[in-house]
């Protein structure tokens, strides 16, 4: 892809929020001396810099409170940064809240015109796309009904329809796609894809890794107001998931039973091809038989289960299996063991899968978890695509 011109330039952007605990005059007078104590501040964003080139679709991801929405609002110009600058060009449409500015007592038609004017469309421009808006929203004859009688779905559909017809160069989307039913969400995603093909730039905030993976060409991961990853989407989602995992593990560690903790240690997983060689140097061909050998050390006498999981780069589980499912009971005595799973005729369609392995008690409490035990590369499917591959033969019959 040739280098496109930047449409957003963000430099050293920081935002500080000051929280006042006193609001009334009485409080201020009474606690005048301890004023400093009643103020607390925190940095929602710290020295964030990035550029977005024209035509990119950027996913902003991060857990709650990481500063994504604040960043998006500053790009949209709704709040001013404490320091740093945002530069932008072209027409922008911000889908920060669908239907902001809808007046419940006015008809859908009136609201379309007002909302379009808010997004910067002239009356003539709105006239030109009005029928398309009604068509896209699926509101039909209700367009002349007051908006307060609309169902929430109709409301959102109409608002989205206006926004996507405002011909933006840059579209900012904040979580709004989470509302609406499935067909509507699909319609929204398709519209976003259409925007991509037309070379428009999209910045999307989402909690849904699938959504981001689906449409974005680049991911920016925020954590506590700082960029921790900027680049490839799959990698970004992995970074985000690792963050979640870290939080979760630190939580479970605290709660863990001291007896269970460290009772079994997973040292690693070896993957062998049918000829006995270790997998990994070359992509694994379809139909190969793989042996997954989990190296585990039992340190305390305990009943345990072990197994492995194969995940796509985006974190979707493609396959998992464990000893309980197979009906095998690993020995409880202290010592080192190898638990071998032989998987015949592998036909995974993904080019790379992430391998993880773990050990749990019989009721599922995690004893040890090896998040990243290696990755497996597979030969791409020459004819089809998807999560699995087959040796497909086609013929035409008349």
């Amino acid at each position: 892809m040739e280098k496109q011109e930047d449409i957003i330039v963000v430099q050293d952007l920081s935002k500080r929020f000051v929280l006042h605990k006193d609001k009334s005059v009485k409080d201020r007078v009474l606690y005048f001396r301890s004023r400093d104590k009643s103020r607390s501040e925190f940095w929602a964003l710290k020295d964030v810099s990035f550029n977005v080139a024209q035509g990119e679709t950027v996913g902003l991801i991060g857990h709650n409170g990481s500063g994504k929405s604040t960043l998006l609002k500053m790009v949209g110009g709704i709040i001013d940064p404490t320091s740093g600058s945002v530069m932008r060009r072209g027409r922008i449409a911000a889908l920060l809240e669908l239907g902001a500015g809808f007046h419940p007592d006015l008809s859908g038609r009136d609201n379309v015109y007002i909302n379009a004017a808010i997004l910067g469309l002239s009356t003539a421009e709105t006239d030109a796309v009005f029928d398309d808006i009604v068509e896209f929203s699926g509101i039909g004859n209700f367009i002349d009904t007051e908006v307060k009688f609309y169902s929430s779905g109709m409301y959102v559909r109409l608002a989205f329809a206006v926004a996507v017809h405002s011909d933006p160069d840059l579209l900012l989307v904040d979580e709004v796609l989470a509302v609406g039913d499935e067909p509507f969400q699909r319609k929204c995603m398709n519209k976003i894809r259409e925007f991509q093909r037309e070379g428009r730039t999209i910045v999307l905030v989402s909690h849904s890794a699938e959504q981001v993976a689906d449409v974005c060409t680049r991911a920016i991961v925020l954590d506590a107001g700082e960029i921790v990853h900027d680049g490839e989407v799959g990698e970004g989602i992995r970074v985000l998931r690792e963050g979640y995992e870290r939080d979760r593990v630190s939580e479970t560690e605290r709660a863990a039973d001291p007896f269970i903790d460290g009772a079994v240690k997973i040292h690693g997983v070896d993957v062998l091809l049918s000829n006995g060689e270790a997998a990994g140097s070359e992509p694994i061909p379809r139909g190969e038989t793989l042996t997954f050998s989990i190296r585990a050390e039992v340190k305390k006498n305990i009943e345990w289960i072990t197994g492995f999981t194969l995940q796509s780069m985006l974190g979707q589980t493609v396959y998992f299996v464990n000893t309980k499912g197979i009906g095998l009971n690993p020995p409880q005595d202290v010592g080192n063991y190898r638990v071998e799973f032989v998987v015949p005729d592998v036909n995974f369609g993904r080019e790379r899968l992430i391998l993880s392995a773990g050990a749990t008690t019989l009721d599922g409490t995690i004893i040890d978890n090896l998040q990243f035990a290696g990755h497996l590369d597979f030969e791409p499917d020459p004819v089809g695509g998807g999560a699995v591959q087959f040796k497909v033969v086609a013929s035409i019959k008349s």
Partner: protein
Amino acid sequence: MEQPPFGAPTADRIVEGHLREVSNSGGRTRSIVSSVKEILSYRQLLVRLVSREIRARYKNSSLGIVWSLMRPLAQLLIYYIAIGQFLGASRSIPDFAIFVFTGLTIWTLFAEIVGGGTGSILANAGLVKKVYLPREIFPLAAVGGALFNFVVQFIVLIVATVLISHPAPTLDWLLAPLAILLIIVLGTAIALVLSAVNVYLRDVEHLVDIVLLVLFWASPIVYSVTAVKSILGSSIISEIFLSNPITLAVLGMQKAIWAAGSQDPTQFWPSHLALRMLIALGVSFILLIVAQRIFARLQGNFAQEL
């Protein structure tokens, strides 16, 4: 069949314009010229917001727009009976009904601009928080709504005057547009500042009600300036009374429209009324510019304060 790969745009889209700073990034405030330019580029929205307010206000009422006249007419009736007849003010003021309605019309314009403008940012909190617009739009829309009501009242006033006192054209008529302009500029300046301050200190809304009440009685709307003059004489207090821009606008309006009074030699009119009004207008313009600067400074934190 998998979805085609996304990413590379198939169409080269041409985005006009150069990179520009977004709003006040870097803590700097926009210049007044760029603010005005921006507001002008949103003038169609301004018109829509005004019409939204007006239409939504009378949407489900059967009398609709007539209601915007009811309040001043009721006020007129009260003042006419209580002050004009019972307190006897109408004996020294010819065409008392026209006199009161003239003052009330221009006063209502001021009161609605200031009162409506003060709450305008809060009333549109949903928009302010979610979409970027030049925020001056909201107080300006309140001004537009007040102007609309004013025009309705003004038409009624003109019709009544023509029917009752058959005025002959004079140069004094020019004082009416001057008075209206003065009230718009002054009212807008006050509304801009108060709407912004109101976001941080909600007390302002309540304070405004009281101050408006005081200002109403501080201007010669239901009593004549002649009566004030006969009590205060030419003291400094009377000069202060006459320097009130609202008083000047009310007087200008009365001089232009209240034909029975402007031709009556027993009525007192301040000297150089037109000049006084022009000076007040000049000062109001300066206030408007100052108000815009204050507004621009305060508006940066609107979204997080609301």
